């Protein structure tokens, strides 16, 4: 915390503010955001083919411009779904393309982009949490009345994979 503040001060002193672009979308009642660098494009959600043996937050695979990618439902992953209604209009897909992962994140509404000062991302420590489920939260952005949760999508997945490995190990024992 102290470090952050100092960095902020330094930046203000040099009068040189770095901006980052983020893509904001709604999950449950909250606003979440990804760094724009992680997103390749936004498309209308194509039809999804279910894949067995996968956790329920991986909805299946879909064909996006000839690439077959996994479709992720983060509301389900984060436990934010309030109604049981399955396909309550996950109309848009954020396509994420990295060397390791190719996937789509399902969202309900058209996401919008925002430009924020890098320094306005606040690191947070969640109270009373065992610490497992928060490493993918990069920070909180406070804008007037809005509160946006920045997440690192790759951390979400690496966590899931670690659990897979762990499961396999315990299954062997």
């Amino acid at each position, binding site marked *: 915390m102290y470090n952050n503040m100092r960095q902020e001060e330094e930046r203000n002193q040099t009068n040189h503010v770095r901006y980052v672009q983020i893509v904001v979308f709604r999950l449950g009642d909250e606003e979440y955001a990804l760094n724009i660098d992680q997103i390749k494009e936004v498309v209308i959600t194509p039809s999804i*083919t279910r*894949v*067995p*043996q996968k956790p329920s937050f991986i909805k299946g*695979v879909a*064909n996006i411009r000839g690439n077959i990618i*996994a479709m992720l439902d983060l509301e389900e992953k984060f436990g934010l779904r309030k109604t049981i209604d399955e396909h309550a209009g996950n109309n848009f897909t954020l396509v994420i393309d990295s060397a390791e*992962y190719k996937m789509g994140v399902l969202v309900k509404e058209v996401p919008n982009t925002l430009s924020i000062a890098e320094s306005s991302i606040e690191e947070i420590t969640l109270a009373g949490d065992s610490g497992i489920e928060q490493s993918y939260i990069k920070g909180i952005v406070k804008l007037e009345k809005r509160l946006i949760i920045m997440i690192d999508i790759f951390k979400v997945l690496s966590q*899931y994979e670690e659990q897979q490995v762990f499961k396999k190990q315990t299954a062997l024992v």
Partner: protein
Amino acid sequence: MSTKEEEYRDIFLTEAIENFNEINRLLIVLEKNPEDIKSVHALFRITHTLKGNATGMGFEHIAELAHVLEDLFGAVREGKVIISSEMFVSVYKAADILNELIDAVKNPREVKYRGIKTKLEVMLRSALAERSQSIDETVPAASGYENAIAPELLDMLQNDDEDHIDTATKLSFSHLVQVPVQKLDNLLNLVGELVIERDRIIASGMHSASEYSRLNRISSDLQYSVMDVRLVPVDFLFNKFHRIVRDAASKEEKNVSLKLKGTETEIDRNILQVISDSLIHLVRNAIGHGIEKPEARKQSGKPEYGTVTLEASSESDIVIIAIQDDGGGIDAARIRKRAVEKGILTLADASQWSDRDIIMLIFEPGFSTMDEVTSLAGRGVGMDVVKRALDSIGGTVHIETKVGEGTTFFLRLPSSMAVKATLLFELDNETFAIPLSYTERVISVYKSDIHTVANGLITVYQGRTISLIFLNDLFRQERSSMATLERFHPEAKLEIVVVSFNGRLVGFIVDKLLQQKEIIEKPLQKPADGVSFISGVTILGNGKVCLVLSIPGILNTVNHTQHNKISL
């Protein structure tokens, strides 16, 4: 000359020209820095390879000259000889003549090479002698090499020199191109997408199908051409086994000779790569477990030398590789005993299983019949790896063995990884593909002919019992098959796809059979990967993603759950 031989000759020439260029490059490096031991090592290796390749192809002249160079670099490598600048001149000349000899394979003509060969030999000999003299002065001095060369040889040298002045500077080009496999993979992917796109356009039905006949033909020709490029003859792999067999046999103190058959059979390069470790394992096993020690062989009236045969043959779009040994065979009784000891089978099961099923147990993880562990085989790892490698490319294995006479492993492999003949069917409004290589037949059965046995479903078709599975029950791992069956009308007729895997028949109950289709399969990528029931996906003409079932993956799971049920 057959086209096959021509193709091999071309491959040899490409490699030889490459070798020649590399020799030149290394010589220049070495000339600038005679201390550079790395270059000497490389030169030795290259000349050795060139000699081997040339001998294999029957180009004795190239082999002879390469052999002398190999000896020379061998001596330099061991520090017995230091190449003088004078010697470099001759070595360069030898390299040039080597190039001419290589060129002469393409454009037959006479190239004189004996002169330079003899000169190098003499130089090497005298250099070696000089050295031993400097170490041990009592050895009578050998005179300079010039004196040792007979006058007529000098004449020959002279002639050689005059002959090749005009040809030495000609650059040779091979008419083969070497391409990284990665590029071929890309090309194949693109062709795959093209074919999918073609199907999509045809399926959309804007014009009549005949409108597209040319597009159809061109795209499938293109597809098969690209697949053809990826095919390599199996002897690329088989030839490496001479050494493997020799090393394994000497370690085990056994006498083994290797026979290769059907080496011209062609197979996709990637498949060859996937199974190469498995082949090594099977061959080592054949030597370690199969072939007996020489004394034991003599006692049972067999020739002292055991034989391991690698044979490849093709059957439409399948390649069969057989690994045969004339050793002791696999004793089913011993495996049965072992399986009971290890708790893999109950005594009752063990006595009921057929010898064939029992022998397949050697592919179970952690199973080994050898009591002592040798460095080659018998650690109980490996055979399951062989099976997994085969499963991953849609291949199968079966064993024929006779105690005292030997064992043959038959590997059935797809000749190409790209295109899979599949059967499409529909289940809960989703389309699945099932590889035809596993599909036995398609039957329809009245609900009344399906019986419930210990929580599972079976039916009898033409005297054979087939266990039935609802795929969605398996995928969701919740509902029981009985409950699912209850939902059908009592007089309903059910469509069943019967698959066979390692001699077992299993039927999948499907909603609707669609069509047979050749598909281009793509692997699932992270984070959707690691699904054992699905081997990959393909895109259908309507743009939807279709899952391709992995029969080994599904049946292994089914068998395991059955095992568990029994043991519980």
